[in-house]
């Protein structure tokens, strides 16, 4: 079962942290359709965040069509996100691993690699209205 970690003063509201952590687990396949989310009581006991915070996060996930709450039974995953870890992606991961290895051999630092990939991802998957974040300026020729 997913365990939430809520960071204080991270700038991200606690309910959003719970939403994001759930989405990430759905994306990475750590949560599957039919899996049960922890109860509000369990999340509250583990994180000491207000019960309303957990309910708000779960409502948000429900509104996004990712989970459904059944009275008395709990909150269950009804849809997963993305393709990041399914079988089709396995080959891509392998290619990416090889590419990152070549980048390191070529002398690129961790930050260089992240900036480079971010700039390509931003170009290939443009966001609706936000301009791409500043990775472009660090792109190497």
């Amino acid at each position, binding site marked *: 079962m997913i365990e939430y970690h809520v960071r*204080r*003063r991270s700038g991200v509201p606690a309910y959003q942290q719970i939403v994001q952590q759930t989405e990430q687990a759905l994306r990475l396949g750590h949560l599957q359709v039919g899996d049960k989310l922890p*109860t509000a009581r369990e999340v509250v*006991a583990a994180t*000491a*965040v207000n019960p309303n915070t*957990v309910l708000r996060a779960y409502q948000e996930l429900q509104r996004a069509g990712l989970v459904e709450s059944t009275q008395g039974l709990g909150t269950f995953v009804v849809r997963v996100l993305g393709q990041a870890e399914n079988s089709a992606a396995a080959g891509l991961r392998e290619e990416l691993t090889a590419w990152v290895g070549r980048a390191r051999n070529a002398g690129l630092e961790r930050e260089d690699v992240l900036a480079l990939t971010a700039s390509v991802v931003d170009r290939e998957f443009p966001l609706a209205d936000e301009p791409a974040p500043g990775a472009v300026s660090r792109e190497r020729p």
Partner: protein
Amino acid sequence: MITTPAVQAVGLGVRRGRSEVLHDCRFRIPRGAVCGLVGPNGAGKSVLLATAAGLVAPDSGRLELLGRPVGDAANRPRIAYVDQNRSLYRQFSVQRLLRLGRDLNPGWRPDAAEEVLDAARIPVRARAGSLSGGQRTLVSLALARGKAADVLLLDEPLSDLDPLARRRTMGLLLADVAERGATLLLSSHVLADLEESIDHLLLLDHGRVRLAGPLPELLAAHRLPDPLSVPAARSAGVGAPAGSVPARAHRVDLLPGDAGPDHTEAPTLEELVLAYLHHPGAPDWISPAMRPLTPETCEAVGA
């Protein structure tokens, strides 16, 4: 439908000798709320909690718990109170105190009490008098939690606990809110401890209620100045006690809903509280959600 409030004060006043330690307090704490009671030293927080527990009689106005006047015997099984001194029978072992809790309280939940002690590995055979301050706090909170009360009145419940015990203990108290709809009224000097845990706030200053309301509403109703237009505003540190006011609190706009173009950012809980304490003349802000329920009092607070 509006249920009976957990706690309601109408014109509450309490005197100690010649001075008035609580003055014309009006507020309502709804059932199931987690209400932080904050304010500087001497603001009247402990007196308010002791009054709610029925240990101090109001000198004027009234204070009700679960719809009955404080001190009403029918309330006793439904409230739990942890005072600042963690009053325990010093000669009694922890085990004996837990037995006492079980024998004196019909709805006793042994698991809830033991859960508080287990994680901290409190020696159950030790006498209460031989425990450290933090351990005595945990035993007091274990007894309060075991009672399965509807309203828990907790005076600085986290003050002498280590960070891990704070998080864990707060988590257990909040679990009772999620599970049983318990109401928590807890005082604290350390606003950071409360920030993600409370949903209502009651700010006392010199015995007066300055600020009361659901926390999201209070934060949304106030604005900080733009950090770019006031460079000093964001530089102060965090975690300062309520008595010392960091520079940025000077700049908080205290006029709700009147934020100009250079006031854009919502304050944190700490910034909000410090701003009110630093501006004693600022108008009080009592949200309709925390005003007392009777018609005549709604009028009196300007509803």
